[in-house]
């Protein structure tokens, strides 16, 4: 049957028959890199048009409807525009760091792709600390924003960078705690283990209310971590022009823009993996017949369906809620999300020990 893992295995077989092992490894690494870059480009195009359409429909507008059929090629036109624009570097900027920052953002986003399981047995690197790896690497993300903010030598950029730093550092806590809830249940940090543990039902259903609370906390925290509205203080247009990327233009701006969308995809993929079973089809306990029907839907469709559903939820947040003030933002984290997720983690631990979950 046609599947991602079949293609990958056949390719690997063919390559190892044709070349020696070192050559095979190098070719496979290059192929993986190209695939990730291709996925990035596709995600950028799809997510931008999706965001614009979703925002338009939620605000009773039509949205882009001129370029291509129903405006579906709008983001392609935008990309072309960004590609041909001049990438300015301001005179007073720290030129090295200013030009380095967008690439750091992009490299971090690429590194985060490694442990994500896109389909059954289709994963770049199934390392044994998968989830910890994700939260570790995503903490480098803030560095690129701080770098951009400082190197621009601009008040707005610096303010945006500082806000973003405070925000990401504090929301990482509750994101980490809600991830821990799943890790406690599974007893493993490995992504494939976590997915396999959900073969008889996803954690959000198996884990009763505490898991739902953890899921909601996770979604709120990652919305804040990716600097999206209602937590977009780092680039609050009405206050800070464009925050940390005020001075960026052309392709360097496009890289930040793309990194933002790719990060949204990644956090949603992680959320789908942890709480909604990743590529695991929707199974209910002992209903063999039902489970069998569900298995006919390819695993990649399950994964992308769940991920895009979460992306839609995050977009839904963005176009519904007004932006928070900085004190409200920190109140929400330190007075509400953190205590709630700590108590929730205690309850989840008790459940895991007493085997109260299904």
């Amino acid at each position: 049957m046609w599947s991602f893992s079949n293609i990958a295995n056949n390719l690997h077989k063919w390559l190892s028959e044709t070349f020696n092992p070192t050559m095979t490894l190098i070719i496979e690494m290059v192929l993986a890199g190209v695939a990730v870059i291709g996925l990035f480009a596709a995600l950028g195009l799809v997510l931008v048009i999706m965001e614009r359409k979703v925002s338009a429909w939620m605000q009773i507008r039509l949205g882009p409807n001129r370029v291509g059929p129903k405006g579906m090629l709008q983001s392609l036109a935008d990309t072309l525009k960004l590609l041909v624009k001049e990438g300015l570097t301001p005179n007073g900027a720290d030129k090295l760091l200013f030009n380095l920052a967008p690439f750091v953002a992009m490299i971090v986003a690429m590194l985060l792709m490694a442990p994500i399981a896109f389909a059954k047995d289709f994963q770049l690197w199934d390392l044994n600390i998968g989830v910890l790896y994700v939260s570790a690497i995503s903490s480098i993300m803030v560095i690129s924003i701080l770098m951009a903010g400082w190197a621009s030598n601009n008040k707005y950029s610096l303010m945006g960078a500082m806000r973003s730093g405070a925000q990401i550092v504090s929301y990482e806590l509750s994101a980490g705690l809600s991830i821990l809830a799943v890790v406690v249940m599974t007893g493993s940090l490995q992504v494939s283990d976590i997915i396999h543990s959900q073969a008889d039902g996803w954690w959000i259903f198996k884990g009763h209310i505490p898991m739902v609370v953890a899921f909601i906390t996770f979604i709120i925290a990652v919305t804040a971590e990716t600097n999206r509205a209602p937590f977009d203080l780092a680039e609050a247009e009405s206050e800070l022009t464009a925050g940390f990327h005020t001075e960026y233009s052309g392709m360097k701006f496009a890289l930040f823009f793309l990194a933002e969308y790719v990060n949204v995809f990644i956090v949603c993929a992680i959320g789908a993996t942890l709480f909604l079973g990743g590529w695991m089809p929707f199974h209910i306990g002992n209903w063999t017949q039902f489970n069998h029907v569900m298995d006919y839907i390819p695993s990649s469709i399950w994964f992308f369906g769940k991920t895009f559903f979460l992306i839609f939820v995050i977009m839904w947040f963005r176009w519904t809620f007004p932006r928070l003030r900085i004190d409200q933002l920190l109140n929400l984290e330190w007075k509400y999300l953190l205590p709630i997720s700590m108590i929730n983690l205690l309850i989840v631990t008790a459940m895991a020990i007493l085997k109260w979950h299904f």
Partner: protein
Amino acid sequence: MITGSTILFYLLAALTLTCGLLSVSTRQIFRAAIYLLFSLIGIAGIYFWLQYEFIAAVQIVVYVGGIVVLIIFSIFLTQQAGEKLPKQKPGRKIFSALAVFCGFALTMVQVYKHEFDFDKTMVSPTMSNIGQNMLSTKEGGYALPFEVISMLLLAAMIGCIVIALRSKPETK
């Protein structure tokens, strides 16, 4: 023999050392912090190269996500963008170079003196292994250091609160 693995090691080591050197020799304080960051990432890379992913991830979480961000924040709050630090006196330079050399020599002597036990089969630590060792009170357990560190953090937290709570002098 040169294999891909050794090439990778030398690349990572070169990254770590160059960035470390640059971080002490640059005259822009923010760049120093960023070079330090890349140097720490290089060390994390070496841990990944050794296939101790857990330590590598912890290295990134603690040093990159925590300490460097803290350093950058203190730079943001105290320094001005685009300014260069004053040049150091030659005496100071020589002294710090000497101190670095002494520390380096001491470490190298210790490394060469130590008999490394290569016979032990390497175990890739699993999650439950790490967790159990972290909280075990038996020999080789880390319960005591863990608690001592948490005491340190508690003291730091109390200090912060005391500083923040310092009452303002009453105005008439």
